[in-house]
């Protein structure tokens, strides 16, 4: 085992006490995984510009090192374990660590004599030339995110399949890392994903009707929580209900069944009820309903509706549903915690579900892929149904029973719930058998069977075990039983009884011949009983609309495949190049005559091709390669028409590249880049792998968890689009918040869940990304905060310090949360070990300043300590903790001291160059799939202006990309 594990701190944070000093590695400390990177792998791309390797300056450089460095780093003193005398003799060694210290001005130290800029350049170039060199792979596989975005754009659909494709990044920082190989497992997953996406674009069975359902009924929910939703006016009133396990308890709506996967529209007619200023949040989830379980299933949050309106308003969100899924709602407002009575909460009058929604008809994949060809487009049907009526009601039927107990009448079998039920009379006297239900079918509709469900949630008394069914024309004379059988007594789902043949007789008698009896009495109970009729509205046979292509011409087919392939491959294709991609399609067209089906095989070949999956692909000319590169980096996709046109005419170079980058950043597709870059650079991908303890942080919930990363993304998006100075990464007087986040941060006056720019007062300890909840959360384990993990995060991602790993013989120390007063002392202790101090003095202090924030990013002045707790965990809003020692947030970076996070930000700002240099390096790695070589780093450093306010983020991105494109074209 390597020493890396000591930094992993997988569940509880640890720190290491180092016992010896070895500086051989570049230390990459990540919060959840460690990527030990031998510097030999920090290779250079052969086709980037670089200085001649036999530098005539070698001799000068060595002299400069002797002048400025050997006082401390000679063979006898070897400060920090570095013996430069020995290294200067070598022709190649890993010079990264020294290089980074020299380029960022950390070395020589401030109180020593400094080299001039020109001298420093000579030293750096020498270090770059002696750097170990090995060939960097000249290509990379595209990531699953790039795959999905590209195929979506190519087909004209919006299907998020990235989560169904395995993550192949491993412990690498960036998706684009060239060391990641395309494996069989990935290619196999791409084959499957390609099938799904092409099938979604051109469904084999056509498009189902545009259906809509209107419902105001919810499904049965767990008895513990169903009391927090109640009938109100024409609909239902929901209060904020967190289940005992702490999950948001959400209530499922009844009655609609998405027939195919696709986008659906959910329109809630809803209003806020209550006299408080804040909006109520209506969280809309999708998932599968299982009654059997009180634990809300893993559900996807589709969207959040902010209810501020006191009058009922129609509010619409969209979401992607799979067949078999339903929609559930959870209503959050800090004022309406588990209310059973009273007039406060979210009132939902009704829900209208519509879908699958298509943006246009004929659908976009057809008009896009088959542009210029005639389509056969039938009319798409629309269908509406009102949910809530049973099928018996829909055919105008009635029900009668042998006897009933008060409160358990026959209507209870027809009210859509299995929690309410019909029961035979048991008091004052017990009704005599036979117990039966008669269903009347006055309009003589065709009935093929009955649907039965037990009543659920009770002791099971009266549940039907055996039954017999007879028919009659007049309700008096009954024929022989047409069907007899068993029913399962423990199922909560419907059990269907199918008749041997359909019947349209007027009376159907369901006789209970045996039932569960816990006390020996003759009883019967039924939760739901309904007829199964083909003539019910919901069962009306829907006709799918199938769009076809009028042509059967092989040339048309070739043109279709060519157009698609040239876009996907970002190139022009010769007849010979195209031939393999046409072949299977043409064969299929000849045998089946089905133009669309034939096209699908060709499209699949294209998106499974190495020309598409491995970048750069095979490009007719360099400008095509540049177009593909820019589209991949800025849009995670393929080039659009304009880029391809520029590439074809050879105009994508020089100033035009700058113009295009600007256009591409303005395009909404660049949001994908911001999302992707932020989640990788700032490690936000691990955001959900930390679960704040509900005992310590009881107010943390799904909603704040949903919005925290969005804040960071919106902020970064703003900085990039507005081309703001790099210093805004560290500090600013604004962020993007909504009501929930403002509540979390203790900021008043933000109403509604729409994200908007909020300006902070000077006393607010927010602004900049260090103090965002997202960052503060991922740098913990969800229980306690760790100054070391947070310090390492800042060192690595923001300050850009180069760290060494802890040496082999280290032991981890578990902090004792009950004695937090000594926490800082404990950590300080390892500073006294000289081996540790060399590195930890540049790691830990950042973390100390952030001690003022707990593991969810809330401000604190005292630590929270979990109270011992035995037995079942039951969620309570006040949690299970007591307050302990005061937070200490002071520290020292280099020679500068700070009292708190405000002070720390000032120190970081004073060295904006380092922050900018680090940003440029990270963006370079994101864009190119490897860490810049030392020579490239010299170029990156030159991009940084000498005035802080001139150093702007969009400019840096521009320069990194221009530099990369230029390098790639050499």
């Amino acid at each position: 085992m390597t020493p890396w594990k000591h930094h992993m701190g997988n569940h509880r944070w640890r720190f290491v006490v180092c016992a010896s000093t070895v500086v051989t590695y570049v230390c990459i400390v990540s919060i959840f995984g460690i990527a030990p990177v031998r510097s030999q792998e920090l290779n250079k791309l052969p086709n980037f510009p670089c200085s001649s390797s036999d530098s005539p300056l070698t001799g000068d450089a060595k002299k400069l090192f002797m002048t400025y460095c050997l006082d401390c780093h000679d063979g006898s003193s070897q400060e920090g374990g570095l013996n430069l005398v020995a290294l200067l003799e070598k022709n190649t060694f890993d010079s990264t660590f020294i290089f980074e210290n020299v380029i960022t001005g950390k070395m020589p130290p401030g109180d020593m004599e400094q080299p001039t800029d020109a001298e420093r350049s000579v030293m750096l170039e020498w270090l770059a030339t002696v750097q170990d060199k090995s060939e960097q792979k000249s290509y990379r596989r595209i990531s699953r995110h790039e795959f999905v975005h590209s195929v979506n754009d190519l087909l004209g659909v919006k299907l998020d399949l990235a989560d169904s494709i395995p993550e192949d990044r491993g412990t690498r920082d960036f998706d684009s890392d060239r060391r990641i190989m395309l494996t069989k497992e990935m290619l196999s997953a791409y084959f499957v994903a390609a099938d799904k996406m092409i099938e979604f674009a051109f469904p084999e069975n056509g498009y189902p009707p545009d259906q809509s359902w209107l419902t105001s009924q919810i499904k049965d929910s767990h008895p513990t929580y169903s009391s927090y939703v109640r009938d109100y006016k024409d609909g239902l009133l929901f209060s904020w209900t967190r289940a005992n396990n702490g999950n948001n308890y959400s209530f499922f709506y009844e009655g609609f069944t998405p027939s195919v996967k696709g986008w659906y529209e959910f329109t809630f007619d809803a209003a806020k009820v209550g006299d408080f200023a804040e909006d109520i949040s209506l969280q809309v989830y999708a998932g599968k309903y299982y009654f059997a379980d009180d634990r809300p299933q893993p559900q996807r949050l589709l969207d959040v509706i902010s209810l501020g309106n006191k009058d009922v308003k129609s509010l619409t969100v969209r979401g992607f549903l799979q067949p078999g899924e339903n929609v559930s709602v959870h209503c959050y407002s800090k004022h309406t915690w588990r209310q059973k009575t009273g007039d406060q909460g979210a009132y939902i009058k009704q829900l209208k579900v519509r879908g699958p929604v298509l943006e246009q008809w004929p659908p976009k994949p057809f008009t896009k892929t088959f542009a210029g060809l005639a389509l056969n487009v039938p009319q798409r049907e629309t269908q509406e149904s009102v949910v809530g009526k049973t099928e018996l009601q829909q055919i105008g039927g009635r029900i009668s029973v042998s006897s009933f107990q008060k409160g358990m009448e026959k209507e209870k079998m027809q009210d859509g719930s299995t929690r309410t039920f019909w029961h035979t009379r048991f008091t004052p006297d017990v009704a005599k058998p036979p117990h039966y239900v008669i269903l009347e079918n006055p309009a003589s509709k065709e009935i093929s069977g009955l649907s039965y469900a037990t009543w659920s949630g009770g002791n099971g008394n009266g549940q039907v075990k055996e039954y017999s069914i007879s028919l009659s024309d007049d309700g008096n004379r009954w024929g022989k039983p047409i069907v007899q059988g068993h029913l399962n007594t423990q199922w909560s789902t419907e059990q269907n009884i199918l008749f041997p043949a359909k019947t349209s007789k007027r009376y159907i008698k369901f006789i209970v011949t045996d039932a569960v009896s816990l006390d020996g009495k003759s009883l019967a109970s039924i939760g739901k009983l309904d007829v199964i009729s083909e003539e019910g509205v919901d069962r009306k046979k829907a006709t799918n609309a199938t769009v076809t292509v009028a042509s059967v011409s092989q040339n048309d087919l070739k043109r279709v495949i060519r157009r698609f392939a040239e876009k996907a491959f970002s190139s022009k294709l010769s007849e010979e190049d195209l031939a393999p991609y046409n072949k299977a399609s043409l064969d299929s067209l000849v045998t089946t005559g089905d133009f669309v089906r034939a096209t699908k095989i060709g499209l699949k070949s294209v998106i499974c091709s190495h020309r598409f999956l491995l970048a750069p692909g095979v490009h007719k000319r360099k400008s095509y390669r540049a177009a593909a590169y820019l589209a991949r980096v800025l849009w995670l996709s393929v080039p659009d028409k304009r880029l391809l046109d520029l590439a074809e005419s050879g105009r994508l170079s020089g100033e035009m590249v700058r113009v295009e980058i600007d256009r591409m950043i303005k395009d909404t597709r660049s949001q994908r880049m911001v999302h992707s870059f932020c989640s990788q650079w700032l490690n936000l991908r691990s955001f959900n792998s930390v679960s704040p303890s509900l005992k310590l942080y009881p107010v943390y919930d799904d909603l704040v968890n949903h919005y925290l990363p969005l804040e960071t993304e919106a902020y970064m998006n703003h900085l990039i689009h507005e081309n703001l100075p790099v210093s805004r990464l560290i500090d600013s007087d604004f962020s993007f918040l909504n009501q929930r986040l403002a509540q979390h941060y203790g900021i008043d006056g933000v109403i509604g869940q729409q994200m908007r720019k909020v300006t902070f007062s000077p006393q607010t300890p927010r602004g900049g990304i260090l103090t965002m909840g997202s960052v503060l959360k991922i740098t913990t384990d969800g229980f306690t905060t760790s100054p070391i993990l947070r310090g390492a995060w800042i060192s690595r991602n923001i300050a850009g310090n180069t760290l060494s790993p802890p040496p082999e013989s280290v032991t981890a120390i578990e902090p004792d949360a009950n004695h937090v007063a000594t926490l800082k002392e404990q950590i300080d202790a390892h500073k006294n070990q000289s081996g540790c101090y060399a590195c930890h003095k540049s790691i830990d202090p950042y973390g100390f300043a952030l001690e003022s924030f707990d593991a969810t990013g809330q401000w604190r002045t005292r630590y929270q300590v979990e109270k011992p707790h035995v037995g079942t965990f039951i969620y309570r809003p006040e949690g299970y903790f007591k307050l302990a020692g005061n937070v200490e947030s002071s520290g020292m970076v280099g020679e500068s001291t700070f009292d708190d996070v405000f002070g720390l930000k000032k120190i970081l700002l004073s060295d904006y160059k380092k922050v900018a240099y680090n940003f440029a390096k990270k963006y370079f790695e994101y864009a190119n799939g490897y860490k810049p070589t030392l020579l490239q780093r010299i170029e990156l450093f030159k991009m940084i202006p000498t005035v802080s306010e001139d150093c702007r983020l969009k400019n840096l991105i521009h320069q990194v990309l221009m530099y990369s494109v230029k390098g790639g074209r050499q």
Partner: protein
Amino acid sequence: MSNMHRRNLLKAGMALPLALNTLKLRASDNKGKPPRRIIFICNSLGFYPPYFFPKNQGDISTSEYLKDVKSAEKMTVFGNFFHPGMSTSNHDSEKSFLTGVPNPEASNFVNNISLDQILARKLGSDTRFPFLNFSIYDRGWGCSWNDRGVAIPPMHNEEQIFNMMFGEEDLKAKKLRIKNDQDVLDCLRQDLAQLGNARGNETGQQGKLDSYKAVIRELEAQLEHEKYWLSTEKPTVEKSLSTDKEFGFSTKVHNMFELAKIAFRTDSTRVITFSLDWIYGAIKVPGATGGWHTLSHHAGRPETIEKLSRVERDIVKHFNQFLFEMDRIREGDGTLLDHTTVILGSNFGDSSNHTCKNLPTIVAGGGYKHQSHVEFEKPTALCNLYLELLHHHDVDIDKFGSSVRDMRLL
């Protein structure tokens, strides 16, 4: 036919001979070693500890529940296992049973890959089903979690499981997909061949094309493998499922064990998980009717414990029968049980107060040196046992979940 042999054929890109077909009902009559198999059973409400654990240390015959187990000499009961980081939890703890990830009750909990799925990668490539995953009710999740921490929905319908393993199936769509994929691969191969001729010397291109060719070859082999199973007849098995309606729960448990047994016997799979998940509402077993969950919160009331123990005895009865029947099927120089590792455990040590300490754990079969009953002095990470199981199945890994080390318990 040995595994090695078949892999070599696959590597050569050849169609597989249909010899496997002749295996039919005999799990393995091959000359080499019988294959190793494994099943994990999670009894989600645990067992009443005083009745489960032996009263006298080291002596399984002093356990109220286990004293009559017929295969006692091929079984070890372990006391004092736990998942670090989980002292108490709620029913979500079942999610961590085979993963060891703490804090499953948190609302944004993300699970990890489960033990069976790692084993399925190793043991799953030579059978029709790489793994099977059962539960009693339809709940969408059970013991098995994929490498992205997403639940693999278990199957719960006996008929469907039986038909999937042994029933006839319309293979048209599957065959068409494989044909399409092979056409796509042909296309890609041709493109690569043309490019190889045209620009073989271009810098960097050759390595890229070669690596892609290699991946395509592997995928081709996978398609051949799938085709092999499509063209291989399913084994013929007499339906031995119980249809007793009186004790529905009992029938279900019996049938799931029966399905597991015939799945192993026919070598349809080598990795199974079975989650005995609970549901609201009453269940009926011989001697008691009541809500299993309600009974599990017995709070020490003797009459409730009596009823609960009826449910638990019933489960142990089916487990016992499963082991007994597995042990009667000869295979190689031993029995099917000798080549099948059976783990019965739970996410709760005591579900009455939702504690996750002292998890009831049995390892049976597998040809290990069994020791009746082992009680650890200190709470010990269950993942240590998991790590050891991985090692016994030739998975080269030095850590699983919260494991500290392979304790060589078996």
